[in-house]
């Protein structure tokens, strides 16, 4: 049996094949990064885009992603072989456009992509936006990501 690690809100998890990392997302974004050669990978569950410097780096896209990359490199990953998948970033179905809380999902996705691009990690797949909650499983045996949303499952294989 594969080990299952539940990654909570504003937490991070990293391990190696055949561990499975799981999280549940609303407007948060799950960033899954994988080294296809070493078969090590990790997941960050970020709540907000930008870190105001409050000592919780795992909570924000701009600080969590560099932290996750550093962790994976420390665990033996080679930065050249890393690639990413994103999921989450949903929004409330209806909200007044002047309420910035309604745009957090979108801002989380944008910031995550920006930081990954800066870090030279290609985003190969993403399942983001919309109004659904998502349960994602990230399989470290081959880097696939399973997204369960609104009663349906989708698989993303590119690594």
């Amino acid at each position, binding site marked *: 049996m594969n080990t299952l690690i539940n990654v*909570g*809100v*504003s937490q991070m998890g990293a391990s190696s094949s055949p561990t499975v990392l799981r*999280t*549940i*997302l*609303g*407007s*948060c974004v799950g960033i899954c990064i994988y080294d296809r050669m070493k078969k090590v990978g990790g997941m960050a569950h970020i*709540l*907000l885009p930008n870190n105001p410097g409050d000592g*919780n780096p795992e*909570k924000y896209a701009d600080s969590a992603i560099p932290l996750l990359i550093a962790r994976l490199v420390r665990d033996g990953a080679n930065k050249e072989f890393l690639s990413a998948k994103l999921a*989450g970033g*949903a*929004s*409330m*179905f*209806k*909200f*007044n456009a*002047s*309420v*910035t*809380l*309604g745009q*957090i*999902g979108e801002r989380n996705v944008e910031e995550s992509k920006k930081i990954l691009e800066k870090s030279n990690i290609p985003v190969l797949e993403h399942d983001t936006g919309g*109004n*659904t*909650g998502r349960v994602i499983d990230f399989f470290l045996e081959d880097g696939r990501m399973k997204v*369960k*949303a*609104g*009663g349906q499952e989708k698989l993303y294989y590119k690594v």
Partner: protein
Amino acid sequence: MHAHIQQRIQEIINNLDRLPSIPDVASKVLTMVNDPDVAFKAIADEISKDQAITTNILKLCNSAYFSKGKEISSIDRAIVTLGIKEVKDIVVVAATREVLNKIIVGYDLARGELWKHGIAVAVLSKRIAVLKNKKSIADIAFTGGIIHDVGKTVLALFVQNTFKEILELVQTRQIQFAAAEKEIMGFDHQEIGENILNKWKFPEVLRSIVRHHHQPDKAPAEFLPIVSIVHIANTLCLMAGVGIGADGLYHELSDTAIKTLGLTNRELEQLYGDMPQVLNQASGIL
């Protein structure tokens, strides 16, 4: 609409035995707390009659979230140390756990997720009440948070069979999930919840929270602030993925609720950013 589904749900509502039950002590305590003529001793005696729940209540009194540091070994001591409002909230936690802490099939919630969601909404509701200078209703907001989704426990089975239709209606007509529930099945989870609270003899303010948590503007004016608090707390928890089920975020973030509480964009984002702390506190109650 499916007339036969509506009829089956109506039968459940009409036959009180088929709605979930909780220990009597909960409604008794809720009523006694609101009666200025009832002595604390009488409330303590009432609770202590139910041995099983007393054990659970004492455990909760000494949990990280409620404890004030001193070991509490009797209900009398609990009322003196924590206050009657806090003890009332603890009674509701202990009384409703069994009903809420289970798998909710149609909404795709694994065992414990609805319970965790309710407790997180309760903790966050209390925070919002304190933040917006409504400390006097913080305890009721907490109770309302725990039970706001209780209707899902009954409606889940029917949602399971009609989920595709509900979602299609949400998308084609651009209506909230709860509104689509009502169109397809004749009832939404808020109405069922209100019926359950009627059976439990819970006070009107709690029935109003359960009935209107997705559309606070429909709540009676006197309950608008408290319904708004639970609405915002529910929204923030769902956005953070806590207890998010098959109905996802197909809900409205009510402008009326935001304006009623006078919440700024900054405060809303701050509260959302506090979710890890809220979950940490909630875990002390689970």
